[in-house]
């Protein structure tokens, strides 16, 4: 049977993109799914996606004449061109073209392309695409190690060899690493600042961020290898100069450069910058100890997720990691079955493992990140009328209730439980996740 294309929706730096990939052998597609797993999301039919790309893969046989192949590849380097109407990405093994379409007053990009059936070629296409689209939404991709520290994010920009992966490897909890290679920074006027996002673009650390969740950006700490650990404040303009060197941008047209320059200077004027002089042996604790005076106050103050999509994505990452997740619901939605102090247990589960009568928890996507919700449904029951479940992703099974260390019977009806898992549940999960 001929393999079918795979549909994948990725959200990176706050921009969602629809991909139709393949056809390709399942082993390759599985590799792709695994690599981008933390950044995939269910797609509502009316998803507000930044782009849609149909990408075909080509098997390129190993070159017979290696010298000739190298010469050909060098003669056809990565070239990215973008205007208000088209985006083209080309390389010896890549050819992608997208056109702008206007919908709901916003520009959406639709296109097709082909690339070598290689995770590196696909990754290159994705990096190039997001590097073009993010600056148009006041965001950027930066060559840097990104670390979550308490309730904030710190970005350590640096070109190759300046210690990004070394720094990532020192993190006591690998889940705090947003990426050892490439992070996204976005201006978020709604919370008065800038946020840092993990990405699936990684270096030798071989893993990226764990979810789509963003963190308030408190400092840009430019990496420098030295004999002792010091943090030296630098001016905004020096910071901008260095950040421009680390910003991922393949275009050289005036409009793009002007836009990027304006974005970078605004970012550097508003976020503290230091030169992070590190040694190879410095521990994360020592590094953050020295950074602390430059991070501002309240690094432990809990900050809500920017939107429901980020929250659900983070919840999914916890569930994938721990397989079982418990939280105490707040509000009256579940009464009388769940009383004050009771915990609800969610167990990671495949659809095939569910039985009739089980209550499953779903990520139901909406048009915008704020429209995504968590909902429950009892297997075998009709779907509630008036609710859209299109594209929903099952996250797990509601496996039990507990109170005072005792297991409680599961509720016999669903409606209260479903109400609980509406968008109002976002904050309780967040607080209980300790984030």
């Amino acid at each position: 049977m001929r393999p079918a294309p795979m549909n994948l929706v990725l959200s990176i730096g706050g921009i969602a993109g629809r991909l139709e990939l393949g056809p390709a052998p399942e082993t390759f597609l599985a590799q792709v799914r695994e690599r981008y797993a933390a950044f995939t999301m269910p797609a509502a039919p009316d998803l507000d996606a930044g782009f849609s790309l149909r990408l075909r893969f080509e098997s390129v046989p190993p070159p017979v004449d290696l010298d000739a192949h190298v010469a050909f590849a060098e003669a056809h380097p990565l070239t990215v061109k973008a205007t208000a109407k088209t985006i083209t990405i080309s390389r010896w093994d890549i050819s992608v073209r997208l056109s702008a379409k206007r919908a709901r007053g916003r520009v959406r990009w639709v296109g097709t392309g082909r690339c070598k059936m290689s995770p590196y070629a696909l990754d290159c296409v994705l990096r190039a695409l997001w590097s073009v689209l993010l600056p148009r939404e006041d965001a950027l991709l930066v060559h840097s190690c990104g670390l979550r520290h308490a309730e904030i994010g710190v970005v350590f920009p640096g070109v190759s060899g300046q210690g990004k992966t070394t720094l990532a490897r020192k993190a006591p909890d690998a889940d705090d690493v947003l990426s050892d290679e490439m992070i996204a920074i976005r201006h978020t006027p709604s919370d008065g600042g800038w946020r840092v996002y993990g990405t699936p673009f990684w270096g030798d650390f071989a893993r990226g961020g764990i979810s789509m969740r963003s963190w308030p950006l408190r400092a840009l700490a430019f990496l420098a290898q030295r004999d002792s650990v010091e943090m030296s404040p630098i001016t905004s303009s020096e910071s901008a100069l260095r950040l421009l060197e680390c910003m991922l941008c393949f275009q050289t047209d005036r409009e793009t450069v002007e836009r990027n320059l304006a974005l970078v200077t605004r970012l550097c004027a508003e976020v503290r910058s230091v030169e992070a002089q590190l040694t190879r042996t410095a521990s994360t604790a020592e590094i953050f100890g020295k950074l602390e005076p430059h991070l501002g106050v309240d690094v432990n103050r809990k900050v809500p997720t920017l939107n429901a999509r980020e929250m659900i994505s983070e919840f999914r990452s916890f569930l994938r990691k721990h397989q079982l997740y418990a939280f105490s619901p707040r509000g009256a939605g579940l009464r009388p079955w769940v009383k004050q102090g009771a915990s609800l247990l969610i167990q990671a589960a495949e659809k095939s493992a569910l039985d009739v009568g089980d209550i499953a928890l779903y990520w139901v996507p909406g048009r915008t990140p704020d429209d995504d919700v968590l909902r429950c449904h009892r297997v075998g029951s009709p779907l509630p009328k008036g609710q859209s479940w299109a594209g929903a992703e099952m996250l797990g099974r509601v496996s039990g209730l507990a109170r005072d260390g005792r297991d409680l019977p599961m509720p016999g009806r669903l409606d209260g439980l479903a109400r609980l898992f509406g968008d109002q549940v976002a904050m309780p999960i967040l607080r209980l996740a300790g984030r």
Partner: protein
Amino acid sequence: MTMPNETKAASFRREDALPYQRLDEETIVVDPRSREVHLLNETAARIWELLETASSVDEIVEALGDEYEGAPPEELRREVETFLADLGARGLLASRGRA
């Protein structure tokens, strides 16, 4: 270094196509052709402003002399000439015309 007389009489103008941004007292200039980024200090940033329109060395020195009281004119002139030569060498000036 002193410029030849004909250079002193020439006018200079910055390359219009180069994106730049002022940040605090400094200015960042990006040259997309060479992918180089230049950071101009306060005085250099002021000269960059003056170079929006074609200006001779004399005109620039005069303008700076008014703004930086106490700066010896000859020292200012040397600094301006050196800076203009540097800008020219980096391709940040438009082709020169006669004043």
